[in-house]
């Protein structure tokens, strides 16, 4: 017997019928509530992920090979938003509406020098650069020794032969204002999952 039949027949429903109806209504309420909560939860999760990804840990996909072998084309990395960088950190920075990835070599006031063989000297001391496969003077049109101006950092790519970086006057030293953050973690490919140095 259906409810409609009950209504049309105007008979008093039995207690079982009422119980069934109560269960149905409660289920409907629970279902709506759960659905609503689920949507809310998903929205909150999405919002949190957006905030983290944009404000704290920008996720970057590497294009190009000038940071090779440290970072290869297609790598996806996490960075931490900060402008407190030290020598050797891999940084990302704004340049002409793009984000560049380079390694910090000289901080403001440092005297950076490079010889013909690509050896890098900072304040007169040869820089130990285990992350480099082949040293090269590369694309260089600035005069060495180069004193890093105030409020700037001197950056180089790890692939010294092909990298366009602070050695090229087109880029030059990078103003601290232009720095986005420091790259710390690789999430893709999984084979290289882990921290980046």
């Amino acid at each position, binding site marked *: 017997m259906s409810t409609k039949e009950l209504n049309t027949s105007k008979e008093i429903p039995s207690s079982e019928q009422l119980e069934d109806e109560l269960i149905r209504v409660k289920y409907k309420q629970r279902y709506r509530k759960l659905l609503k909560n689920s949507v809310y939860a998903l929205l*909150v*999760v999405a919002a949190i992920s957006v*905030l983290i990804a944009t404000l704290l840990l920008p996720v970057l996909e590497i294009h190009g090979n000038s940071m090779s072998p440290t*970072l290869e084309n297609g790598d996806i990395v996490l960075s931490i938003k900060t402008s407190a960088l030290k020598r050797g950190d891999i940084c990302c920075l704004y340049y002409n*509406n793009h984000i560049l990835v380079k390694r910090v070599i000289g901080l403001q006031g440092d005297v950076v020098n490079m010889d013909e063989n690509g050896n890098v000297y900072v304040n007169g001391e040869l820089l130990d650069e285990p992350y480099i496969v082949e040293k090269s003077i590369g694309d260089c049109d600035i005069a060495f020794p180069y*004193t890093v101006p105030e409020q700037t950092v001197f950056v180089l790519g790890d692939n010294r032969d092909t990298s366009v970086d602070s050695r090229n006057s087109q880029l030059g030293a990078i103003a601290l204002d232009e720095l986005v953050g420091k790259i710390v973690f690789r999430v893709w490919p999984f084979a290289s999952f882990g921290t980046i140095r």
Partner: protein
Amino acid sequence: VIIKDAEKYQKAHKRKSIWYRVLSVLSAITVFCTTYALILPAITMEDPSPGIKLDNVFVYEDEEVLINFHVSGRALFVNEYLDDGNSSANDVELSVKKLPESDYAYGEYLEYMDSSLDDDCLYTLTAFQLSFTHNGAVLDTKNCTVKAEISPKDSIKEVVNETPLIDTKQESEAGGTLIFSSLDSSSDEDDKVIAFSALQGTGSDISEQDTVFIQANTSESLPMITTLVEGDTLAVASYSAANPSFTVQYYTSLSVFDTYTKAEYNNMTSAQKAMCLPLIDTSGGKLPTNTTTTTSTNDIIYVRLVDNGTKNANGLPEYTLAKHTQLMPMYTDKTFEYIKAPDIMYFDKLYSNGNFALTKILVLKSGVDPSKAKDSDWTEYPADATFTNNPSSAIAGKRIYIEDGAVIRLIHTPTTGSYTNSATFFDYDITDGYIYTIESTSATYRRNTSKQTNSATWFANTAESGINKFSAESGNAKFSFGNSNTGVTARTATWNGYYINQYNRSSTYSGCAFGMVTGLSSNGLPVFANGITAPDLFSTKSVNGKTVFNNYSLQFIQQGDTYTLAYVNGAGSYADNLQLFSNPQSKYSHIFTNNFWPMDAANTWGADGHDLVFGSEQYENNRRFISTLEDDTFPPGDDGLDHNSYFGMTYSLEFEISDDYEGPLEYIFYGDDDMWVFLDEQLVCDIGGVHSSVGEYVNLWDYIDKGTAGKHTLTFFYTERGASGSTCYMQFTLPSVSIQSSQYETTSLNIEKEVQNSDTNTAFDFDVTFTDKDGVPLINTYVYTVYNADASIADNGIIENSTTRFKLSHGQYIVVDYLPIGAKYTVNEAVTPGFFTVNTVNGGSKTEGNSITGTLGDTTEKVLFINITSAQLPSTGGRGMALFFIPLLVAVIYAFSLPIIRKKLSVRRQE
């Protein structure tokens, strides 16, 4: 029922668990998708150009040449599909192939050589074809710079030297090199040279890029030549060439005074005579004497005054000495060999002399005797013409063919500038340093000189006072200041019967007393003749009545090597425009003066312990002197104005002449009173005594041997001893005056604009300001030129009042020349929205900022302003974080607070 309820709850729990799992998976997917959507592209920025970046040196060697090819730039693969992006420059190879004579390119080089050399010229020609490959793949190097350093071997020289002279053209082949030879008409082997050339180009564009010469039949090796290889072929040629000797004459078009002899003067009208100034002509080393030089002698020449078209501060016309232009030889003619002096810079002695500019080149027509040449015998060429020893290479009006025995006359014109020489001035007092209220020297009526006023009558004590306060040696004439009209005791002093302190009336020339000084002492001061005792006039030692001023200098107008005194720096209007004459007042039309009153600017006159000023006609009766001889008014000035009379000046300058200099070497003075000039230690100009203006012309060649190089010093001593009027006109013509301004003592500023990553049409506004080392704005006018990136001129103009504004676009640069070394500059770039600016000086470190200040050194200062578009959020960031941030934050807050709110509501409902 309990079991039933338990089953119900178990079902509900399962459903809940499933929902939680689904929700977790959905959350993970959401996080992943959201994060993935937010991944930002980060570029590592590498040189994106295709091909291979080269910075290599390739060596080619055969039996004739050794060539180092320096290749830099990016070589592209002709077949771009062979470019895998990882090609190494180390795998690039250069293939050099000698072209056979049948090759078309070889034929073009051959045709060029045939057309450019004489028919009787021997030459060898070798052409190469270059190709660069990478693992067999051909590379296109048109974007590379290929510089070839070509070192010829002696075999090339021997081929030219040893080739038999025959009368028909023949061919032989030696490793791809064709040797053409024919009859050499030059029988004089000494005149023959071997030329070694690098050729480049195609068709009619073939040209000799670099050529060196050596004497034929010598053991000397041909030097290396260099050339840029533009295409894929390169040719080298060696040939016998003429080595003509030619003679160079150095002439300058000088502005010299119109001078007239006594006879010419006598034929003038009285009006013309009135505008003439007489000069004692000491030519021949004849200094004037008290017995021989009179107005009747022929030792007088005249110069003529002409209206300058200007008026002085009193509104009276100013006059200048009439001049005319005269072509004069500056150096003895010199003979050069073409191979040692192939261009103007090698044989123009005045090439680097900033005082002259080469304006034209005259070449004497062949066969004409230079000593008899008429104007029409010379062919005129512009100053930028070049020279060749090859008649076929001559270009009418541009490239001059030099044949053996050619005579070239270089015509220069003087450039104008200024020259400053330090000088020491002396203010002499003739009073006791006080003024008196009545005609008495009693201490009761003594007052400090600073109390002098125009309205009251004051008296000064001139009896044996000030500089005149000393005792002459027994029997000697006492040298004193004050003329005959200030009550000075020694005014009547005579030496050998000649008045030395007032107009010498003993029938000498214009009242002068000649011969009062005889030479220079060991400390560089004039030595007075026996019979004269003078105070220490010109040293910086402290002497009664003398105040030394070292803060003045003399500024001369420099025109070529001629310097005319124009200003006393530090004296302002009291000694300016000294190159011009005027009448002191219209009523004195017979007097010409340049109003030389430098000590009017001194702080001594009218000061306590010093003289008062006098000369004013208006207050003549209020300025009086008291002496033991007489009491009277001080004499009025010719111009009717007060002046600080009685002063002296000394300065010296060095000049150097070369053994071949034969240009003018002279000095002219016109003025009063004493003027003694010494060349080294020899007196060359002597105008002693107190007198009206007297002129003297000195030809310094009378005292210097032509053909003898050396440094010389001219030392000048001048006094103004007579009041009333003061004139000091002087001009000297000397080569290589020390501290002379020339091109090499100036420097340039180069300001360049570079715009990165933006449109290249934006013009950026700049202003530049120049000051001297002390921050005083530069007063001279400077020329600037704005160049485009391709070195074509975009704009030019002048910088007046030390500053100017200009615009620069990407690649443009401005050059300001002839700036003084040590000057400071400040360049400001106006802020352009959307750009930030960094600057760098001389390629040094970059500094962010729109302004830069620096000091000019002795080399060109290069300032580069780089504009870079201001960084913005990456494109993936959209319009900014605010749009995302606020609603997301609200959502998060709501999400976290929702359970709490619901719990509270539930509690409330239960209540």
